């Protein structure tokens, strides 16, 4: 099977180590991952800001890049939700693009779900014993892609101690452009999130979404809260590379 990596614009530009971990983790699991280099962004920032025409241009570009692959895997719930839920919605009026978008939606998987649902693995040879982790459910991963169990199963099977925050499913305040359009509210939400995280007394905060983690980590650092923040894919890969 041919599997493409959709690395996401944020990871590509701001946290490439996530892209590296994604590639290495998938290769470790026997997936010959490919990277179509013409990829840029799924268009979510434009979509959430209400710019439908611009979003459609970006979406059409994106859809065209992945036609040859059996699966498209990405380390993000929010970009995944964009492709799986919003792409088909956007193109409901244009029959041909609608078909293409539905087809891509069916082949697109957030990375931890790809591992548990397509590769059907929960033990990936990662050792995270001794790690006390609290997991943040990104809004789009949780509510639009139903991702709740797959990252938790992988972390638990790797031996991590998973401690749930009381507000694990409350928005962190990122919301893409919301974070810079209403920054005071966004930061207040991040601080409320941090309170819940600190209460768990965990050492590591993890999630499927780099945008969320960037927001919470940025707030924590400003408030002098010292807690490790790591994307679940990077954390799992760390448990493979250094854990055994």
């Amino acid at each position, binding site marked *: 099977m041919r599997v493409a990596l959709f690395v996401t614009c944020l990871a590509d530009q701001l946290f490439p180590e996530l892209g590296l971990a994604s590639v290495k983790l998938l290769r470790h699991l026997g997936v010959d991952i490919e990277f179509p280099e013409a990829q840029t962004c799924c268009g979510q920032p434009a979509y959430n800001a209400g710019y439908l025409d611009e979003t459609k241009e970006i979406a059409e570009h994106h859809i065209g890049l992945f036609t040859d692959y059996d699966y498209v895997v990405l380390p993000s719930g929010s970009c995944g939700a964009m492709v799986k839920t919003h792409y088909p919605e956007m193109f409901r009026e244009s029959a041909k693009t609608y078909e293409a978008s539905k087809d891509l939606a069916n082949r697109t998987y957030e990375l931890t779900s790809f591992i548990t649902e397509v590769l059907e693995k929960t033990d990936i040879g990662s050792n995270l014993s001794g790690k006390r982790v609290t997991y943040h459910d990104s809004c789009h991963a949780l509510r639009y892609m139903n991702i709740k169990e797959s990252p938790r199963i992988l972390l638990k099977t790797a031996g991590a101690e998973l401690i749930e925050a009381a507000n694990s499913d409350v928005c962190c305040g990122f919301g893409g452009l919301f974070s810079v359009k209403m920054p005071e509210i966004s930061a207040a939400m991040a601080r409320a999130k941090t309170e819940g995280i600190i209460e768990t007394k965990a050492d590591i905060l993890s999630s499927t979404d780099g945008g969320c983690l*960037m927001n919470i980590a940025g707030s924590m650092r400003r408030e002098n809260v010292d807690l490790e923040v790591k994307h679940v894919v990077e954390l799992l890969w760390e448990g493979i590379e250094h854990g055994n």
Partner: protein
Amino acid sequence: MEISTHNFKDNARKALKNENLQIAMKRATKTFVAKREKAISSLDNFEDLRNYCGAIKAHTIEYLDHYLEEFIENLESLGVQVHFAADADEANKIVTELALEKNVKTVVKAKSMVTEEILLNDALEAIGVETLETDLGEYILQLDNDFPSHIIGPAMHKTREQVTKLFHQKLGTKEDASIIELTKAAREALRKGFLKADMGISGANFAVAETGSIVLVENEGNIRLTTSQPKIHLAIMGLEKIIPRLKDLSAFLTILPRSATGQKASSYVSIITGPKKQNDPDGPEEQHVLIIDNGRSNVLADPKLRDALRCIRCGACLNICPVYQNVGGHAYGWVYPGPIGSVLDPGLLGLESTHQLPQACSLCGACGEVCPVKIPLPELLLEHRQRAVKQGLSAKAEKAGIGAFAFMATHPLVWNSGTKIARLGSQFLSREGHIKGNYIPVLKEWLKERDFKTPAQKSFRELWRDLKDEK
């Protein structure tokens, strides 16, 4: 209350700095969310109920003319006098004329959001009618010349200390009065009002077409008193409050208290069908119902937005919204705050003066999950954003920025070079691995209250060149 929907951003900033408000909001919303969670989890068919209630409301709205007509016919056959108002001015004119005609000196009022919408109290006071709010939360606000910040708990933004001080000033209670003592003082003050009032004004939680009934839900008993003691009962309702049949009530009355306050049942549900019957020992001799449009028919005419008229005013979307939790209701600048306010206000007031409201949202989707009548709130918030763009209400810089972004995203070579320049440029702003840039547009907004990690020198796609040959 002056409308300040156009000032949401400033309002929100002030709210975030208001310590008393922050304390009150965190406590209140946390409590409401937990209570609702518990009450909903004790049902084994919540999703079925939501589907049913949503379907009933959607159906009623779709055929609202038919059900309104049925409702009015039944009201008239009960001897109820029915009035119609296109807008707030007309509504207030009808009420004040009625008050003058009937020589009304004192009015007792139940909590009603639609009466806040039309500023009824001001109109009555202008003709010298004493108007007493009888819901404790509204009474507190009336004493303080303040306005509601939440649909269910209107004085949610006030701390206990603030209320104690207020009652000491206005009612002469002790400086350290307990909440029980404060409640007792309110009961005594309002009891006098109930007994002398000439007219009781209520809203309507539901209006049953099949029977011509007005349904009112409460915990304090003030609504029972308002609708039973005075000679005249006037119910004021928006045209969207109709439900088709009496039997539909059991579904709505199961889902409403649980969503609103986490109760299995509110203390009192009054199903009022006409004025007192001839042999009734007591009850109002006259009943009037005033049905108000005030912009609702515009929302009705909008096939996408019309779903917002399903709202049964439970407040669940407010309580779960992390933006509302942090800024409170006043920031939204009008009667309806939170997600439902951000969806409805543009429909009732126009997008031009309200377009900041749909932006006050991270699109987390929590509101859509809790709405007992399945209003697609997140979709409607996004719809308003799309309309704002189409109507040219977005900032020019933003439009240009998105345009540039779209161009880059559809031209990979430009994307590569453009982002590379930005990343290299950011290295100059880097201090201890984080960016300092309080003058750079967009970035400076982020940096107000958070740090931003300096982007890596090489992007993933540059690193891929080395990676791709390794296997």
